[in-house]
């Protein structure tokens, strides 16, 4: 008897835990409300099945626990019942699968007006690149990456020149504007994940992966790496700030383009060379002096 009661309490506890849990998803801040809704739907159907199955089991425990000489049903098969159960299950599964597929279809079809954001991951950090005035990102290559070209942009690609470079773990996004995240990695697998946006995708070295979302809530969010990438995995964090269009444009205008970077490097190089030459001269003079 008490076995059934304990099992009942477990089921009751699970349901109550679900209803009153303080640990539940964070407030959604993107267009993927549909994912949350499908989860809720799955909870209703799946949770219903779980409770029903367990309650039936508990009922059996109460009703049919061992008694010497109890009359037991002998019925190896019941075609009708089995058929009903199969079809009911199939129906329930289809009801869950359909919204799942519909939303996936939205997930893989990126809206035309989405802003492309190149997210570059490495062990262990992020940096970002936005298209410039031409609205297009330049092509990249891992082997191009060096101090002067931290993003590995192909220098002869005309689209790359005006790309806006954000050499920071933090990026700003415009509210209510779809974003297509283009992920690439220079070393191992990573995953750019903001729990509030619900969406995620691995960054895979050697290819570029993508996903999209539309932030719809102004605020600051933490970026987590969601694919194991070595010992620094847990510390690989970044940030997103979703801003109003006005604030965003202000931020955008402060960012450096690839062109700027090249120019700066050239100046630096020029100055470096000059410095080096001077040093040489100084050095030589020093040597002469010593002699």
């Amino acid at each position, binding site marked *: 008897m008490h076995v059934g009661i304990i099992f009942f309490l477990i089921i009751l506890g699970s349901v109550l835990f679900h209803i009153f849990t303080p640990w539940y998803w964070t407030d959604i801040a993107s267009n993927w409300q549909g994912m949350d809704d499908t989860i809720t739907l799955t909870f209703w159907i799946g949770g219903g099945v779980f409770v029903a199955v367990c309650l039936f089991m508990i009922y059996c425990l109460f009703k049919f626990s061992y008694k010497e000489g109890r009359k037991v049903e002998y019925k190896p098969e019941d075609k009708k019942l089995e058929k009903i159960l199969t079809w009911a299950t199939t129906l329930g599964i289809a009801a869950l699968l359909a919204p799942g597929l519909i939303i996936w279809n939205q997930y893989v079809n990126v809206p035309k007006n989405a802003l492309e954001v190149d997210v570059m991951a490495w062990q262990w950090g992020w940096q970002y690149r936005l298209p410039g005035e031409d609205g*297009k*990102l*330049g*092509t990249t290559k891992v082997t191009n990456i060096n101090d002067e070209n931290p993003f590995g942009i*192909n220098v002869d690609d005309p*689209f*790359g020149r005006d790309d806006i470079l954000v050499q920071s773990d933090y990026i700003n996004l415009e509210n209510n504007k779809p974003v297509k995240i*283009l992920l690439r990695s220079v070393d191992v697998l990573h995953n750019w994940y903001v729990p509030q946006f619900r969406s995620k995708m691995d960054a895979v070295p050697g*290819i*570029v992966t993508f996903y999209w979302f539309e932030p719809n809530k102004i605020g600051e969010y933490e970026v987590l790496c969601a694919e194991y990438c070595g010992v620094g995995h847990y510390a690989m964090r970044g940030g997103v700030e979703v801003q109003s269009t006005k604030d965003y444009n202000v931020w955008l205008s402060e960012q450096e383009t690839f062109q700027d970077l090249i120019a700066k490097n050239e100046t630096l190089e020029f100055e470096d060379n000059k410095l080096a030459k001077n040093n040489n001269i100084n050095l030589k003079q020093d040597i002469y002096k010593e002699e």
Partner: protein
Amino acid sequence: MEDSKKREQSGSTHKIGIYLWIWGLLFVLSFFSYLVDWYQFQGMLRWSLILFFMFLKAGLIMAFFMHLYWERYALVNVLLWPMTAIVCFICLMIAEGKYTLFSRLFYFFVGG
């Protein structure tokens, strides 16, 4: 045990002619698939010829040299049905390979 041995033998031998035939056919088919390369056929023609000769040869070896043709359906089906998993794997990997190549060419070479 003597009986069972006899039983096995009675069903196991075939005329030598059939083996020689298959043997000859295998040489001919191999020669044909070699000619595909010799004449440098390209494109779909090459592919279909390669696959055609390949499956024909594989089928002959399995059916006659490995005696599958004479085996009972229970064994044949047990051996061949799992290949659907492989076929599924191949089809999906073809799609995957194309997708990877596209991604590489598009983002690392072509752009725009």
